[in-house]
């Protein structure tokens, strides 16, 4: 009789544990698992800081004032998340926040790369629109144009022509600091071209 009661209790508790464990979310970033979104974000920022530490300033004098406009969490949640089934709001928010952090951290990368004398960072729901509005006030405006999770590009606009120029990353560069360094080098090269154009 005792055995049956114990068995019943074990079965009931196991099923409850199964229910509860199946319902909880775990968060992973860069191959590590975290029990909360906050811990995962902290791990994420730590990783971004390690990339920043590996950035080397570009050669030559920095070129004036720049504005960096990156998408908000809301925009990243709408356009940057690849969905399967009915995605849970909490998960979408976690991914959206991670993307917002990723992109806004380019302000640190640009500062470390010393491409510009000063860089101001802004987070906007509509970076293209905000960049166009603000471009007259800066020597260069860089924004992230996000159309979907797979259609994301960095764009530079600068006077006198204010024509959008795509900023590229070296696809062959290793992930992490080398990839970001290639992006900084491309910004620098494009600004050098712009300055040559201005001096003509």
């Amino acid at each position, binding site marked *: 009789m005792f055995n*049956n009661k114990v068995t019943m209790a074990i079965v009931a508790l196991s099923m409850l544990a199964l229910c509860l464990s199946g319902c909880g979310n775990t968060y992973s970033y860069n191959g590590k698992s975290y029990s909360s979104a906050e811990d995962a974000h902290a791990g994420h920022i730590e990783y971004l800081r390690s990339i920043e530490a590996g950035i080397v300033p570009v050669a030559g004098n920095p070129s004036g004032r720049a504005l960096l406009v990156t998408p908000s969490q809301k925009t990243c949640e*709408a356009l940057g998340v690849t969905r399967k089934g*009915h995605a849970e709001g909490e998960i979408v928010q976690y991914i959206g926040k991670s993307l917002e952090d990723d992109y806004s951290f380019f302000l640190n990368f640009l500062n470390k790369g010393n491409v510009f004398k000063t860089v101001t960072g802004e987070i906007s729901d509509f970076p*293209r629109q905000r960049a166009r509005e603000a471009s007259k006030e800066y020597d260069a405006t860089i924004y992230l144009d996000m159309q979907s999770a797979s*259609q994301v590009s960095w764009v530079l606009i600068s006077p006198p022509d204010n024509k959008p120029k795509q900023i590229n990353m070296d696809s062959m560069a290793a992930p992490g600091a080398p990839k970001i360094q290639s992006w900084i080098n491309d910004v620098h090269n494009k600004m050098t071209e712009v300055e040559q154009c201005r001096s003509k």
Partner: protein
Amino acid sequence: MQEQIKYIKLLILLSLTLSTLLLLGGCGGSSAINRTANYSYAWPSISYQPSSDLTVGIIDKRLYVVSGRNKETFVGLMRGGFGNPWYMSTESGEPLAKDIAHAVVSGFMNTGTNTNMVVLSPNMSQEDILDKFASVKSARKILITLNEWKSDTFRTITFVYDLTAEVYDDKGVLMSRCTEENISTSGKNMPVTSAIDAGREALGRLLGNEAVSKALILSK
């Protein structure tokens, strides 16, 4: 011995009850299963830039909503283990038409176009709608009618839609009209990976229709 049989029976009954609850309710009453959808995320991809400011209004004319049988927040069905249906509603608790209006406005804003929104309710007459549009100054107004918009989730997700877009000028004169729908005559629709993405694509097709884009831009 009889007592042992009694306990085994109880054990079987308990297991069956829990299994049934799990099957029917997924993770249980408090439910980690998401029975809501956030269509304000369904920003359509728009490949042209309108040449003037816009106003967007969405009206919900789904028959079951207009008749009052379903709430304006209804977005579809999610089925349990035996095909038993649960109603799905908007994550925001706001009418579906309002969530979709937010998505369409954001889609146009993401092209760099200033876009306003008017909130419309299912029983508004055409005159009421045009009056509402007239209250906001913009060169072009887009009215999207939801004739159908519903997902059904069982083992896969199906998503059906029937949408009409009308573009009006600043005086309320109809400039163009087009319809996009995917309602299968056989009653069987192809499954989709995500209802939100399917909704985004549906809106993108509707607004990408030449009749709409021509009325919104002077040149592509």
